[in-house]
């Protein structure tokens, strides 16, 4: 048996007999799980995979675990005097060091694996949607990333243990070196230059984990970790060897060892610099939450011809850079495979690529935007507005297809949310999205003699609080009878607006009484149950949120009449038994033959459904649901968006499930592991 293996087994055996190991492992599991539960909550709807969230939760605690497990591997031998017995065996110091390092590393691997296993099992039970598209294999890059960091943390901790005779001092030194200096330094840097956060990007250790956990492996990063780990193991090994070099005879050996350590430090630094300069990146497909492009996007890409330049105008250090790059490359590949548009991708860093950056600024692009260029035409898409499939496809469409403007009329004068209002309760965000989709937003006041214009694709009643007058209701009624289209966001079941008008068209607002529905705040509703309707079908698997939900039921007018007079009521989204969004259509059967435009109304039971505040605060499918409604009502059914934004994390956990999930991963699993390790240690202790 090789000395390395013997020492490795001994290190693990010793750890098993210590109560502190049980505390370390149990504490590590509880802390990582608590942070994971917290981060999972915060990352709901964010562009992250659950594997990245898990890795980012484990990563900050790994240095502490390594420091705790390695603190006495050498210091105990030094303090007790057993070092003499070890050094008189025919084993090299580096073999001892490697064996001890591997022992500590193995324990870190096992602890991390336990964290991974408990997390995956708990997610599978409580939040299977979070694992959708990731799977166990998707965690592999995250696990590898953590292991790579652990190698360095263990090496540093073993080195510190060889320097200090007291285990506590070794642990403190390790924690200072691994957590205090990097994270404290980072905090100091941000405190010193708070405005520089965007330029600095993520803290470098966290950025490594997030990058690698999403499949991007950089040779420079990987080699840097390995080189630095080797250096610290060399330090540990030489430090142990120094025990032999007491006295005058050992002076030259001490000097040569110190010189070797300095040279090794310089060499390691140079190698790290070199490998980072000659960096090459490997982008593994595993670990990504990539969904297929929708039929609409594929249609746009395949029908468009010629060449288009898409430029990502963003600093490379920006946290979104990698994800956007990956998305754009996927779009490029998809287009090439469809034999349609030839997309030329460019990345311009405003800090480094000054020439191209200046050109983009002249085009009107600000830092942090995507620029779509075709010939002399261009579309600038600020990334703050999102860069998902739908928006990018619309931008491509607007450059490659002749413009077809459709007018959306927003009613005013009854306390409706305004499409020009930029505040929290305004609708400017969704209006801008509509404009991107090719719609023209117009306001209409029906109070005067104004009639609904013939170029009206649909009217939007966005949460009217006051009753429409008889004349206004009559105008809307006439418009609808002539095959008009209306989208209603209802403030409350008994409020004014058009609520009185709806029963005549098959819709009866009611209180949304639900039992067992998911909620975040207690008053809102998280709805994930969608019907097979053209509006809601593409949103299967996603969630919409209604702040103050109103329900709908079919009125007496619905499901009556025959032929062109028949009104069909279709639920779109349900929360328990309550229908919170519904569509009615009249004349659907006869329309195709008689060229009668069918009347359509879509009602959503929440006035604030797509208000700016709602869209900014929560990551949900509200925006897509609304745009689907508009597409359906305006008759561009084929352009219904898929709603599939890339890499969006959806757990679907409500408050109760979240509590159960946290209880299992933070409480139960760590406690069981703690008890098991405690029992093992107690058994060994009792024997002695």
């Amino acid at each position, binding site marked *: *048996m090789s*000395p390395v293996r*013997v*020492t490795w087994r*001994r290190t693990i*055996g*010793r750890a098993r*007999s210590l109560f502190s190991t049980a505390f370390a492992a149990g504490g590590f599991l509880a802390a990582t799980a608590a942070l994971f539960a917290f981060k999972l909550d915060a990352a709901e709807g964010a562009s992250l995979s659950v594997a990245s969230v898990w890795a980012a939760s484990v990563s900050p605690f790994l240095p502490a675990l390594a420091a705790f497990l390695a603190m006495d591997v050498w210091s105990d031998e030094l303090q*007790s*005097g*057993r070092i*003499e*017995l*070890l*050094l*008189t*065996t*025919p*084993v*090299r110091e580096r073999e001892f060091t490697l064996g001890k390092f591997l022992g500590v590393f193995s324990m870190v691997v096992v602890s991390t694996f336990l964290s991974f296993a408990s997390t995956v099992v708990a997610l599978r039970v409580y939040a299977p949607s979070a694992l959708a598209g990731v799977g166990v294999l998707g965690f592999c890059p995250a696990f590898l990333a953590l292991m790579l960091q652990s190698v360095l943390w263990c090496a540093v901790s073993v080195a510190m243990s060889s320097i200090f005779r007291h285990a506590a001092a070794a642990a403190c030194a390790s924690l200072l070196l691994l957590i205090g200096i990097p994270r404290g330094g980072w905090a100091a840097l941000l405190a010193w230059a708070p405005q520089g956060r965007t330029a600095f990007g993520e803290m470098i250790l966290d950025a490594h984990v997030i990058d690698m956990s999403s499949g991007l492996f950089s040779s420079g990063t990987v080699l840097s970790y390995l080189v630095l780990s080797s250096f610290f193991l060399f330090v540990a090994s030489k430090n142990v060897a120094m*025990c*032999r*070099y*007491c*006295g*005058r*005879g*050992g002076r030259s*050996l001490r000097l040569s060892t110190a010189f070797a350590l300095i040279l090794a430090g310089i060499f390691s630094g140079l190698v790290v610099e070199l490998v980072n300069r000659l960096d090459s990146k490997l982008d593994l497909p595993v670990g990504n939450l990539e969904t297929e492009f929708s039929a609409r996007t594929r249609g746009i890409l395949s029908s468009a011809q010629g060449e288009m330049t898409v430029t990502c105008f963003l600093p490379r250090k920006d946290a979104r850079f990698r994800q956007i790059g990956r998305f754009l490359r996927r779009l490029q590949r998809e287009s090439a495979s469809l034999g349609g548009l030839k997309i030329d991708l460019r990345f311009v860093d405003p800090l480094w690529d000054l020439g191209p950056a200046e050109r983009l600024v002249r085009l009107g692009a600000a830092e942090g935007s995507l620029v779509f260029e075709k010939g002399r035409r261009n579309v600038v898409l600020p990334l703050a507005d999102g860069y998902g499939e739908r928006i990018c496809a619309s931008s491509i469409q607007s450059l490659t297809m002749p413009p077809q403007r459709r007018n959306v009329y927003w009613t005013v004068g009854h306390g409706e949310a305004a499409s020009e209002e930029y505040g929290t309760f305004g609708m400017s965000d969704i209006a801008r999205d509509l404009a991107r989709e090719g719609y023209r937003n117009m306001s209409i006041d029906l109070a005067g003699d104004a009639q609904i214009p013939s170029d009206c694709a649909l009217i939007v009643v966005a949460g009217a609080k006051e009753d429409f007058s008889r004349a206004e209701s009559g105008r809307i009624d006439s418009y609808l009878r002539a095959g008009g289209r209306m989208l209603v966001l209802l403030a409350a079941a008994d409020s004014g607006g058009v609520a009185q008008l709806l029963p005549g068209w098959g819709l009866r607002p009611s209180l949304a009484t639900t039992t067992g529905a998911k909620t975040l705040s207690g008053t809102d509703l998280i709805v994930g149950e969608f019907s097979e309707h053209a509006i809601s079908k593409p949103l299967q698997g996603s969630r919409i949120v209604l702040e103050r939900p109103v329900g709908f039921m079919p009125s007496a007018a619905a499901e009556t009449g025959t032929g062109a007079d028949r009104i069909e009521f279709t639920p779109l989204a349900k929360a328990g038994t309550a229908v919170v969004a519904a569509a009615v259509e009249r004349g659907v059967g006869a329309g195709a033959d008689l060229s009668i435009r069918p009347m359509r109304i879509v009602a959503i039971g929440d006035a604030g459904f797509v208000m700016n505040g709602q869209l900014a605060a929560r990551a949900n499918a509200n925006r897509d649901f609304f745009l689907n409604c508009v597409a359906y009502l305006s008759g561009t059914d084929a352009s219904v968006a898929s709603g599939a934004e890339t890499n969006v994390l959806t757990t679907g956990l409500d408050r109760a499930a979240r509590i159960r999930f946290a209880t299992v991963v933070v409480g139960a699993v760590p406690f069981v592991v703690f008890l098991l390790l405690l029992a093992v240690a107690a058994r*060994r*202790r009792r*024997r*002695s």
Partner: protein
Amino acid sequence: MFEVRNIAFTYRKKQVLRDVSFVVSPGEVVCVIGANGAGKTTLLKVLATLAAPDSGVVMVDGQNALAKPLRYRRQLGYLPERVALYEEMTVKEYLNYRAALKGEPVKRIRRRVDEACEMCKVSEFLRSPIGSLSAGLKKRVALADALLLRPRVLLLDDFLAGLDSDMRETAGAVLSNAAAFSSVIATGHELDDLAKWATRFFILRDGVISASVSAVGVDRSSLRGRIATALKGSVS
């Protein structure tokens, strides 16, 4: 043949060993005695490669042992003055671990451990945790560790300290047995006990071997007298 030539060692400007030279033949039990601070432990540490000498060489069968330390350590058994073992391990676990560490093949470890335990009379404690043993037994376990691979050179530092008379007898018997395959160099203060098994005494004073007293064919009282004289200063 184990030979020490002109070993010198200085620690913090104090010359602890000066020009120490001697030869130990196989089968010999050499005891190094001297007052506290004379340099006995330092000498054994130098011989055990735990300290680098200022000058001098250690030869084993005509080869410079310090030039090839790994090879030398394979032939070395060392019992330090302060016995520190792994308290949570059983005797068997500890000796297995040490034998494996010394490079003994797995299939021979059991035999080696049994032999060493038999020799040191700790076989009945094989399954006992070291933490539960008395200091004397721990010393015997440490001795078994030193004897595990039947070393060519056995270095025992103050190995009788803290042992009662029965234990000393046992340890002495072990020493006699070990001499069959080792060149034994032991240090200590227990002159009466050491005289029973030693073949030669080196008197170490102020880092110099001031006298060498043969114990073969000399009766105990006369040997004690000669050593006492040597310790007082007369060089023989």
